[in-house]
């Protein structure tokens, strides 16, 4: 497997990635997650304005193999969603950290950021999962 995990991102144990910019967090799923799901055929996005706690279900990602839930990696409000992936869910496979981003949330509890995983720890975690 030749999967990529950008070092400047933070990761959730539920396989979302987070890119912080001030109090705005851009969220998507990791290369590992898209690889495990296989060809993604549908992404159910959250509604803009939804406020949810960390760990809540934000939406669903459906591949030909399975349906998987997307979680809020941090507590906050949905400010923007990637409408492009509604029509072209394949972006989540081809470019999980770029065109395949899923949502932007305005976070309300910055203390939670330190509980996200660094790239090293996330990679260790998925190696264990593979065994």
């Amino acid at each position, binding site marked *: 497997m030749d999967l990529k995990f950008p070092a400047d991102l933070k990761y959730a144990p539920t396989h979302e990635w987070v890119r912080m910019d001030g109090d705005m967090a851009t969220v998507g799923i990791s290369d590992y997650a898209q690889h495990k799901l296989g060809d993604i055929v549908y992404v159910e996005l959250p509604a803009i304005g939804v406020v949810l706690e960390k760990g809540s279900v934000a939406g669903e990602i*459906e591949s030909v193999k399975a349906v998987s839930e997307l979680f809020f990696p941090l507590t906050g409000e949905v400010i923007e969603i990637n409408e492009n992936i509604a029509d072209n869910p394949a972006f989540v496979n081809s470019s999980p950290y770029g065109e395949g981003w899923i949502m932007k949330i305005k976070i309300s509890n910055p203390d939670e950021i330190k509980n996200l995983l660094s790239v090293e720890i996330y990679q260790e975690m998925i190696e264990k999962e593979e065994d």
Partner: protein
Amino acid sequence: MTSNLTLIFNKGTKRSQHNFIPEMDIDKVDLLEIIPSFFQREDLPLPDIPEVEIVRHYTELSRRNYGIDSGIYPLGSCTMKYNPKINEVIARLPAFSQIHPLQEENQGALELMHHLSEMLREITGMDGFTFQPAAGAHGELTGILIMKKYFENKNLKKNKILVPDSAHGTNPSSAKMAGFSIIEVRSNDMGEVPLDHIEFAMQQGDVAGIMLTNPNTLGIFDRQIKDITNIIHKYGGLCYYDGANLNPMLGICRPKDMGFDIVHLNLHKTFSTPHGGGGPGSGPVGVTKELISYLPDPSIIATEQGFVCREKTNNSIGRIKCFWGNFGVIIRAYAYILALGAEGLKRVGQISVLNANYLRVFLKEKYHLPYDRICQHEFVLSDRGIENNVTTEDIAKRILDYGLYAPTIYFPLIVKGAMMIEPTETESKASLDNFIDVMNNIYNEAKTNPELLKNAPLNTPVKRLDAVLAARNPILKE
């Protein structure tokens, strides 16, 4: 084989000739006069082609079909056993096929259902049954609605249900549909439910109970089943038994004795009625004494004057299907149970386990068997270690090339690249040996000629379908 897949609707209208319908021997009535004009339409392009073409059209379609009458159908958790033809003969007797639930006398039909209910009570240990549910998941919903009403009557707020990750996918969806939220219980590395997780969940006070399949979708019998149901009961919860995997338990072990309060059966699986092409199925629900009044209305009771329908009770969850459910399926299951008798049913259970273990032992020589234990009616292999990145999907498609049906794939989710194999008791040793040979050939092909598998199936009327394109851009109507 030609791949002329023209729909019968595109084969022409107003072309009928040489149709062998006898002359009408009653007075002709002009339909335009007796049917009100607002019910009449002229634009109904039904196919109207010569009889011989109709027969050839459907014969051609049937030649492309694969069913249990064609060969082994090892679709795990679906119990695709052979359906004896005597069941069909009996279900077609005019005294069954020509009756209507609203006619004045239906004693025979009511008696049959009452009698079948008694037999199912004996098989499962439960105290009362309804035959209304149309299939397994409908039975689950019925059972969970009973659970819900039971707690509502007690004024207890229980809005969660435990479902192990080795359960059938319909379990969480049925519970969700009934308004519960789901707590998934992770199986341990033996494929069983960890008792401490259940105890912890029940201590929270808002859990109604558990939905469990035993043996589970790994084909593993949970040896701590009595402990599990005891824990649920200790906290006032109810235990629901998904009877989809009842086949290996027949005559050996009963859900009531395991501690279950509600059970659904799949007559179309365990009791040999045709399914797979849309059924219809039948998913009777059985309950303990305490819950009988919650069963759907009406139910049948035996009196000195004969069999009567008991209408409304206060506790009943109400009607969940019109009339008596899929009666034709109920007749077939009845015929099957009578034909085999108690000893025969026990033998069904035993041979279903023997056949599954026979396959398991031979197939694990080459294929990875993640839960390596004696199994019940089914077992789960994975594609781990198959060379050249050949996947479960490739293997399943290649099985079709050998003229057989594939196992259930990518389920249960707890095994990556799962192949869930259930041969059932009706396969002969020769049939099982043939399946082993095919699987071994495919294993070797994965080494020597992986492209063959990647492009499979090659010998079927329709080649590998683009599942991704179909899911991303479904064309639902021409």
